[in-house]
């Protein structure tokens, strides 16, 4: 069954079709949310809310744009909200309680990488810190465009559509974000 048929079946109430649609996209949605928010809990919340919104609004989907674009528009809006809230909550601690005791989220991310990929293990903590700083210093839109283009390989046109802006505006965001990253990592490249 092609995607349009799958969407129509899901619109008619076919639960299996809806589940297949979710399975087709949910890994990339989770990865995008994880990249943008750098927090498993926030990524989990965005995943839930995004697919619930898709479920609620699918009957109104009229194929005016790609399903992919529509879904990413929902996800990016949710991520933008989270990022803006995070900017407001500047005092939020990076330390979370886990069953193994208190854990710094950034340390956890580094450890996961080190354990699974030798190239990641070689990447110094300093560079990671620098990348984090630059990402945190970007505007929410710059960061979205940068993450969607660099890590998700989305075309600037599709990114513009997802963010409700033009390809040209997305191009400018990408350019500014890359310049910031380039300046911050200058001594390492």
């Amino acid at each position, binding site marked *: 069954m092609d995607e349009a048929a799958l969407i129509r079946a899901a619109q008619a109430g076919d639960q299996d079709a809806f589940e297949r649609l979710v399975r087709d996209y949910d890994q990339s949605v989770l990865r995008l949310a994880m990249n943008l928010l750098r927090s*498993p809990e926030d990524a989990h919340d965005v995943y839930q809310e995004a697919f619930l919104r898709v479920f609620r609004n699918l009957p109104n989907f009229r194929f005016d744009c790609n399903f992919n674009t529509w879904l990413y528009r929902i996800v990016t809006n949710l991520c933008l909200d989270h990022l803006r809230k995070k900017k407001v909550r500047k005092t939020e601690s990076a330390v979370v309680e886990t069953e*193994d005791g208190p854990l710094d989220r950034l340390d956890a991310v580094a450890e996961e990488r080190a354990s*699974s990929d030798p190239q*990641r293990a070689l990447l110094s903590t300093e560079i990671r810190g620098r990348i984090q700083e630059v990402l945190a210093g970007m505007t929410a839109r710059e960061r979205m465009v940068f993450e969607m283009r660099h890590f998700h390989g989305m075309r600037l046109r599709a990114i513009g559509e997802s963010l409700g802006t033009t390809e040209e505006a997305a191009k400018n965001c990408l350019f500014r974000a890359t310049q910031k990253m380039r300046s911050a990592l200058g001594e390492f490249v």
Partner: protein
Amino acid sequence: MNCDTARQQLVLFLYAELSFEEEELLEQHLDACAGCRAERARLDKMGALLDAAEPEVPAGLLARCRRDLASALVQERRRQSPAALLRGFWSKWVVSPPLWMRPVGAVAMLAIGFFGARFVPAHSPALAQMGVPQDPPPVISKVRLVNPDSTGQVRVQYDEVRQRELRGHLDDDRIRRLLLAAAADPADPGLRVDSIDILKNQTSDNEVRRALLNALRADTNSGVRLKALDALRPYASDPETRQVLAQVLLTDDNPGVRTQAIDLLVQSKEPDVVGVLQQLLRQEDNSYVRSRSQKALNDMKASVGTF
């Protein structure tokens, strides 16, 4: 093309966002300019550093998201069911109607009462039964439709839900079916645990075993999943069970479930478990589960260092 323009376009070039003509011009410039070639190499290296710094999705997060979504969708579907819509209508227009509707409603009720009484015969059986004890009302009733007609009568369509009790042995098909339904009741994890606990004596039945495997794979409550794991203990060497156990071991977000899955998988000492445990070691971040996995590999004299 000068170097300033070339360096501005390099970013878009690396992301393949330039047109064919723009790429041609830039490549010609790169062939002739060592400085811009070096800048391109630096941007390539920056890309590699960024790729290595991409956060990984933690093990088990996707499975947890899927389970939580499945459970949220069950609630959502209930909320959107016709009964819920009717309840919404009932609550909005009958229980607490807008202020402007209230006088209209009051007059309508008076009119229905007045004309209704005029049309009821003096010796109506309905009046004769007034004050006489009736059958006890149904335990729960859900009103589906209210429809007043021109004679002043109201047609009410409703569902009755009555509690019934059934006693019987596990070999009674009706008991078994009810237990299977209860084992999948999304509203009550306690009921699911109790039902699975009873069904575990019936694992030779394929339908029961499939229900247990489903609970282990997809139940949102870790207590229920643990109970299903326990019930599947006698089938630790069954290929389908082992396949689900391996999947659970690599995706379940609960360390207790993962630990139990290791115990069951190594119980029958099948060689297929080695690869699964090695894969687990590559992604597991819980120290206890890691140590159990390492110990299991050591006990089987399998390598832990090939990953």
